[in-house]
């Protein structure tokens, strides 16, 4: 079949479609958003399937799990921290198993290009005892997704595909294959899917019993490859996922290569590892993310007579993504000749767009907070986090989706005043509602601002669930008194009026919610471009 240029994210999405996808769900988050974006774009051309954004990753996960229960092949995709949100159903899905093939895509963001932390989703797969694929290139991203569905149905278990930013967001040619037909519907067995303790124990035993077979599957997998250099018995390399590319980049000529074991499936291929260790004395582990393989190999006491080096030994940096040049010294190679960057250039950090509604909201809030030395503004995940930078200098925290609301309540109850929380409409829908329910029930002395720009702006304008009238009804519905739900329009011409609203609600002893409503400028532009005047 033909070769087309795809993002790594798109290669996974197309792999799922060609595997006979029934339904896919997701919540936007860099670097995973493009999986669902692509599915929405190609739906019906010609394959038809369900593809939808969900209100958060936990919901998306459960929706996909339901599709698997019903017998269809299901996909759920998210960024690494999204899997924290979905961790509850994720861990239990290892026990329910997969009726229709169930593939979970977690896209990690080492070096935190667009994330609040760096975490390695392979640990989650290991934690839940489910298999994990880690593609090194785009063809593998496509092929492995297809294979993941086969494996998932063969062993009645969910399977993870772990991506990282550099494969999610790079493009390369991919050859596609014939489309697998969709599964007919057939419900799961109630004794497998009802996790009552006496049934769960049986299911857990089953998961444990699968493990040795999965190690054999890894040993035999075409995605893992051991190439021994017969003459060099001193040095060998284990490279996983995209780390393999960075190693190979530095050995363009095949005859220069030491022994290399490429690992792309988990649990680890013990037989291949044993053969490499029998062959060489020192092994470098080059893996993208955390030192999972390295740590598993050395345990607490190491391997007698062998040396394992990598991120833990300091031969590679402990944090951040790998690159071709970061790997070079660990391979014993000197840096390439290059031009000097000279003196440090002025940085150009991302910033709120000119005319962004958030700017006007923060201006009004800051003005109202003048003279309140003890104030703290707990912010959340979204474009508005950029108001940390000058000239705004408007926020004091950003932790995870929804944290702003609970943190403001806790800080207020500890005695901090004024306790301000700021969250976007989509993030509020994702994880803020339950926290507001809690704050309203306690009538916490805090002011929550919900920035309703009618979209998920940061990730490119996906639909928001908690916007407009529905948002106002939710706020009232969780018990915020009507007179303390204030709607403002963040525009320069309303600045004085908006400051007064903030002053009044700061003075109010109890819960207040200020909803700042103005559409995202980028979103408005996109609609114009699409001719989508509604």
């Amino acid at each position: 079949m033909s070769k087309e240029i795809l993002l790594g994210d798109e290669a996974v999405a197309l792999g799922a479609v060609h595997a006979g996808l029934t339904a896919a769900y997701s919540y936007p988050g860099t670097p995973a958003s493009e999986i669902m974006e692509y599915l929405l774009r190609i739906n019906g051309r010609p394959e038809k399937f369900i593809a939808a954004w969900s209100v958060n990753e936990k919901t998306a996960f459960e929706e996909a799990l339901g599709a698997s229960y019903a017998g269809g092949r299901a996909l759920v995709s998210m960024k690494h921290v999204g899997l924290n949100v979905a961790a509850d159903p994720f861990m239990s899905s290892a026990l329910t198993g997969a009726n229709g093939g169930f593939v979970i895509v977690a896209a990690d963001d080492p070096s935190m290009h667009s994330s609040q932390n760096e975490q390695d989703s392979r640990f989650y797969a290991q934690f839940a005892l489910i298999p994990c694929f880690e593609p090194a290139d785009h063809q593998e991203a496509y092929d492995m997704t297809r294979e993941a569905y086969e494996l998932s149905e063969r062993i009645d278990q969910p399977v993870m595909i772990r991506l990282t930013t550099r494969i999610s967001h790079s493009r390369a040619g991919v050859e596609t294959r014939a489309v697998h037909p969709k599964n007919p519907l057939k419900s799961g067995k109630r004794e497998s899917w009802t996790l009552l303790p006496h049934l769960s124990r049986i299911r857990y035993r089953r998961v444990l019993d699968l493990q040795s077979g999965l190690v054999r599957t890894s040993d035999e997998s075409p995605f893992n490859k051991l190439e021994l250099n017969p003459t060099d018995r001193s040095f060998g390399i284990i490279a996983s996922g995209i780390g393999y590319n960075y190693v190979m980049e530095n050995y363009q000529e095949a005859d220069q290569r030491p022994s290399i074991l490429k690992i792309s499936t988990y649990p680890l291929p013990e037989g291949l590892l044993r053969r490499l260790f029998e062959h060489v004395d020192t092994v470098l582990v080059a893996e993208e993310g955390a030192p999972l393989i390295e740590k598993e190999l050395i345990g607490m006491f190491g391997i007698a007579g062998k040396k394992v080096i990598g991120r833990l030994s300091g031969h590679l940096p402990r944090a951040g993504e790998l690159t071709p040049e970061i790997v070079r010294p660990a391979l014993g190679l000197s840096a390439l000749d290059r031009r000097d960057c000279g003196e440090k250039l002025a940085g150009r950090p991302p910033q709120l767009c000119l005319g962004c509604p958030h700017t006007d909201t923060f201006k009004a809030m800051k003005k109202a907070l003048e003279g309140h030395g003890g104030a703290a503004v707990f912010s959340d995940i979204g474009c508005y986090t950029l108001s940390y930078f000058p000239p705004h200098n408007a926020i004091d925290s950003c932790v995870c989706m929804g944290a702003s609301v609970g943190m403001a309540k806790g800080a207020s109850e500890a005695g901090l005043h004024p306790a301000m929380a700021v969250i976007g409409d989509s993030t509020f829908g994702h994880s803020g509602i339950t926290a507001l329910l809690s704050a309203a029930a306690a009538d916490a002395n805090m002011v929550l601002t919900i920035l309703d720009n009618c979209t998920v702006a940061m990730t490119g304008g996906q639909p928001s669930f908690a916007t407009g009238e529905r948002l106002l009804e939710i706020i009232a519905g969780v018990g915020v008194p009507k007179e303390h739900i204030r709607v403002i329009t963040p525009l320069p011409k309303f600045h004085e009026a908006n400051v007064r609203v903030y002053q009044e609600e700061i003075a109010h002893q109890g819960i207040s919610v200020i909803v700042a409503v103005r559409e995202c400028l980028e979103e408005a532009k996109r609609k114009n471009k699409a001719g989508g005047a509604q």
Partner: protein
Amino acid sequence: MNSIRRQDIILAGVGGQGILSIAFVIDNAALKEGFNVKQAEVHGMAQRGGAVQSHLRLSTGRIWSDLIPKGGADLILSVEPLEALRYLDFLKPQGRIITSSNPFVNITDYPDQEGVFARIREIPGSVVVDAEKLAKEAGSSRAQNTVMLGAAAKHLIVAEDGLKNYIRVLFEKRGEKVLSANLKAFELGRRAGE
């Protein structure tokens, strides 16, 4: 020496300047011509008016890394002069810069512009093009990215006709006016880059 033909290009600019459109055109033209292609780009947070870059790798042989190694780039193609300098350590000693001369000033500490140009001129073979002027002349001030693609055309290993084909693919859905402005922008850039 083997006969592998390859070219590694760093595309640079500020979020919103359209470097991914340049990448789309080069990628597809190269693939059509039979090259292997890998192109790493930046999405998400960094796109909001921040520095953006894309690593574009073309080769008749196998391409391993999605990222160009520091010291490996043949060319930095930039839509903004300060951004052209940001990735200098990716450039091979004999690599060149092709950049627009039009600063995008959205930061308070933008350096002295003469100093920026002086550092660009230190790189032998560098090409500096007034993309803003040429884009306006072509009929669309937004076509500065296409002007820069034209300016680089002579220095790319991809055939010019292929580039023009994919400019058509990219812009024809936005109407005849936008398409013809971009084709003209490419042509004006190509002449300026010679």
